[in-house]
């Protein structure tokens, strides 16, 4: 069984975020790492291929500046190869544009199943995987907290407001996974060394035939203003010296919460 995992390389969440002057879109010029959310998709893919007794995990990613650091992390976990779409023309691409890029890139691979995170940590639109599915003419199941493949059917436990639904879907399909769907492995030293020579097929917007449909212009939306939000001030901060609980009770009584 062959699984494609769409992964995103994002500005390191530990670093202070910034907006690009001018467009006010997210500044992606600093250090990029594999989105934590994607570790779950990569691990799930590796386990599904393992259970199926054969096949490969292929990563597909769109990133600026030919960035591959995050891909190498996922390749070190065990993915076999990657397709990276990188091109200055992609700057400012929105979710739908990204889905178009990923759809074109995915069509360069063989797959039975496409996995992705439910949303990225930096953009969190939560729409790209489903837009991707529509562009590819595939069914999709989002918010999977458990995934199993049985022949040409995928069985998913899908998170709902009230609990979860059991969902079945024929392959090929797109499934998005929540954290906790699996415990991601740490790459081994052997995996890290092997990752260095795994193939990363780097393609451009022109290679995919998407000129004019991506980037800021393709996004057909713009930021009109940016302002500091009203800061909410702090009240009373005290060190607990055994009376912390009592202070909370008194406070809750004072605001008539209890």
């Amino acid at each position, binding site marked *: 069984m062959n699984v494609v995992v769409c992964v995103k390389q994002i500005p390191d969440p530990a670093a202070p975020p910034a907006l690009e002057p001018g467009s006010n879109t997210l500044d992606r010029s600093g250090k990029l790492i594999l989105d934590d959310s994607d570790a779950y998709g990569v691990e799930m893919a590796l386990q599904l291929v393992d259970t199926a007794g054969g096949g490969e995990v292929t990563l597909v990613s769109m990133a600026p500046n030919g960035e591959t650091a995050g891909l190498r992390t996922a390749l070190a976990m065990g993915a076999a190869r990657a397709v990276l779409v990188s091109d200055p023309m992609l700057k400012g691409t929105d979710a739908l544009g990204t889905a178009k890029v990923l759809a074109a890139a995915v069509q360069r691979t063989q797959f039975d199943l496409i996995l992705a995170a439910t949303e990225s940590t930096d953009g969190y639109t939560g729409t790209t995987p489903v837009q991707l599915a529509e562009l590819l003419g595939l069914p999709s199941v989002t918010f999977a907290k458990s995934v199993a493949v049985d022949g040409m059917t995928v069985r998913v436990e899908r998170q709902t407001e009230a609990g979860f639904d059991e969902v079945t879907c024929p392959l090929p399909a797109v499934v998005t996974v929540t954290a906790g769907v699996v415990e991601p492995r740490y790459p081994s030293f052997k995996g890290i060394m092997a990752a260095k020579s795994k193939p990363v097929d780097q393609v451009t917007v022109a290679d995919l035939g998407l000129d004019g449909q991506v980037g800021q212009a393709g996004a057909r939306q713009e930021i009109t203003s940016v302002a500091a939000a009203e800061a909410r001030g702090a009240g009373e*901060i005290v060190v607990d010296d055994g009376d912390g609980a009592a202070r909370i009770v008194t406070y809750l009584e004072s605001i008539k*919460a209890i």
Partner: protein
Amino acid sequence: MPVSTIWVLAEPTASGINSTSLELLSAAHALGGSVEAITWGTGSQHAGTLGAHGATRVHDVGDLAGSLPGVPVAAAIAQLVAAGAPDAILIPTSYDGRDIAGRLSAKLDVPVLTNVVGLRDEGGLVTSHAVFGGSLDVAAKFTGQGPGIYVVRAKSFVAEPTGGSTAEVVALAVPDTGATGLATITSSHVEERTGPALDEAAIVVSGGRGLGDASAYSMIEELAKLLNGAAGASRAIVDAGWVPYSHQVGQTGKTVKPSVYLAFGISGATQHLVGMKGSKTIVAVNKDQDAPIFSIADLGIVGDLHKVLPALIDALKNR
């Protein structure tokens, strides 16, 4: 061009209509012009409520026969758009809302603006978004042809009955969706929940990584129960598998605006704050005096939650 027609996705729930959908109907009504709702499943049974919040007509996709809503509802809306596009389609940020928005966006080849927290008409809709943990307010708008698809966060607007009469219900057919529509629900599991829903509770008790391990979360649940509130969680402990995603409060999770938000062992990372900084009052317990949560807490206790939380539970039991 000022906004003149808005459609709102009226998402059915076990007990009625998603409260965010009612908020969006009120927002649409306030923007002026005509407001119509789109629903499916049991939604049309609530034409009275939908009308009372400003919808003049409800387009009913009807029973989905077990299909996940994303594909059929989006296909039906796309066909309705072809007959006459509205200026805007407002969709709640929910599991199915985002599926519908994504499918519709790709079908119509129009972009989506997500995580919207405000809307105003400036000769065309301008949206507000809170980014970087809510420290920056960003305004945005579409620049191309519509309809504009907007996915709006819960509690961005207040649901206000407008006194409208029951909305007219018209059937909306689903066109053939081919292979895309083949995902099917085979059974539904409802988790027993005692107490109010997380995004409706007047009091929310949340736990984070400072709890130390999954078993400590039971104290959060116990305190929530004692306060007749709901239990929430930071992304860190959801990612760790201690609690399901449905408990997550934050940028990627639920937005809550309770009267009281009590945070135990939560540092207040930017992505968490955006989900709860609208709370009326905030109480935080954390052993790190520099934890960002203390910069927005009305009452902050710098201390060990493994001492404070059990003592608080005891104190409340013995009141």
